[in-house]
């Protein structure tokens, strides 16, 4: 059994939440004031998840780079691997916002998508 303390970042309240783990399994959560905070704390102590935003090279647009985003959170521990994949990717204009560039990004449930539209020139 171990206790992990964290401060919730979902809203300005900044609740101090204590998560009790037993061999990596969450068995108790204390100190949260909303469901969102509870879920956050559970996930954060087991495997933190983050949205990744970056840019990829784009050909045929006014700009050299296109901003991209994961359609949902991916594990924080996969960021390095994720950046490798982002660096390798080149796309061609035109691109629509939310257009999927890499489906099931690194085998997760998230897609890597364009986070804006870019016209072809």
């Amino acid at each position: 059994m171990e206790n992990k303390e964290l401060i919730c970042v979902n809203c300005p309240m900044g609740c101090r939440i204590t998560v009790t783990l037993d061999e990596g399994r969450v068995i108790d959560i204390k100190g949260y004031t909303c469901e969102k905070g509870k879920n956050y704390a559970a996930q954060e102590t087991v495997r933190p998840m983050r949205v990744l935003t970056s840019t990829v090279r784009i050909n045929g647009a006014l700009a050299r780079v296109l901003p991209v985003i994961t359609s949902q959170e991916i594990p924080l521990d996969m960021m390095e691997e994720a950046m490798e994949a982002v660096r390798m990717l080149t796309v061609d204009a035109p691109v629509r916002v939310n257009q999927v560039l890499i489906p099931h990004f690194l085998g997760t449930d998230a897609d890597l998508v364009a986070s804006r539209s870019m016209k072809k020139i």
Partner: protein
Amino acid sequence: MYDVVIIGAGITGTMLARDLSRYKLKVALIDKENDIADGATMANSAIVHTGYDPEDGTLKALLNPEGARIYDTLLDDLGCRYRTAGAYIAACGPEEEAHLDVLADRADRRGIPYEWLTGDEARRNEPNLNDQVTKVLNFYTTKIIYPWEVAIACAEVAVGNGVELYLNSPCTGIDKTESGYTVHTPEHDFETKLIVNAAGVCADQINAMVGKPRFEMRPKKGEYFVIDNNVHYVDHIIFPVPSAKGKGVLAVPTVYGNTLIGPNSDYIASTTDTGSSFQGLDYVRTNIVRIMKNAPLNRSIRNFAGLRPSSSVSDFIIEEAADAPGFVNAASIESPGLASAPAVSKYIIENILRDKLEWTENPDAVMTRERPVVMAELSEEERAEMIRKNPLYGRIICRCEQISEGEIVDCIRRPCGAHTVKGVKKRVRPGMGRCQGGFCEPRVLAILARELNISPLDVVLDSKASRILCQENR
């Protein structure tokens, strides 16, 4: 074989280069930096003093009033911006008032106009003048200028008339030859009859390459605040009564509506230490209150430090070195060096170089420069016409100072044109405003890369090694 190699492209060197370019002479102007006017000319109070301050019998007393008189027509000839702002010397109490009498006496003998104001009269014109000020001497013909603009204009004229400009050319050694000297720089050697040493804070080092200098440079650092041009603080230049330490902490309006507050002066630095310091800025902060109130230092958009090329000799040193014939020092050109520069140049030609060269006027020489297009200075009709001819004049790059892409492109393409971000800033002023380039610098960088046909990675801020971007990302 060159007739003259001028070492140092500051206000002294460029002014001389321009004057020499009137004649059929082979002249090289060399500088160690990546642009003209990167030393003391870039960082000073930007005032054309009228010449009341120097002690009698000095070169300063001879050349300052004459230099100021030459500027009366020179600034228009060179298409440079200036304003005759007038300088208030503000005395607090009888002791300082007595010193004003000394200045007025000198001014009388040197033919410099002035007027007396009571403290209250002065405060009516300058409400931020401190209540302790009892009497003011107004040297109303004192001008403010953009010093580097004048140096750049002189260099443009000189280069237009055939003077060769070599930047990034530090003088690494000088050899005596039969007919003169060889000046070594990393990329070129210059065989020359004569050398003029206008190397600012490095003048003693250059002199030491040919002989034993009779002076030692002791650069004095001056630190300033620059106040946002939406704060209207002073109309006139406002000085305390000068003391042994120098002209004191001043409030100076600039030609584009900012205010300089500074400098400190009691600090002696190395020739490369142009950094500002907490102590220096604190000195300015605590001493401006001697003559001023409501100093808007919280509206500072920038602080900077400059090195005054002062030396162990209290006067200008303008002479042929005793142990090196044909090597001419124009050294220790500290304040009022900017105001004196046109007369310094004339003095060098008339009194030192006159007998050493053949002086044939070049009939094709053009001694004037047309002012570059400044959209903000044009009438509505003129602006419309400019944009019709070139739409880039309608694309504003610097939002603080409202400078168009057309003006930026012009300053890159001109002779002695800008090839650095700071070079563009010096010539047409994007980045001089309250955002200090936060908004426009990436745009200026892109324009430089395009116009110079180089990678954005190779665009520099100022010196050759001052890259702005580190690598392509993707």
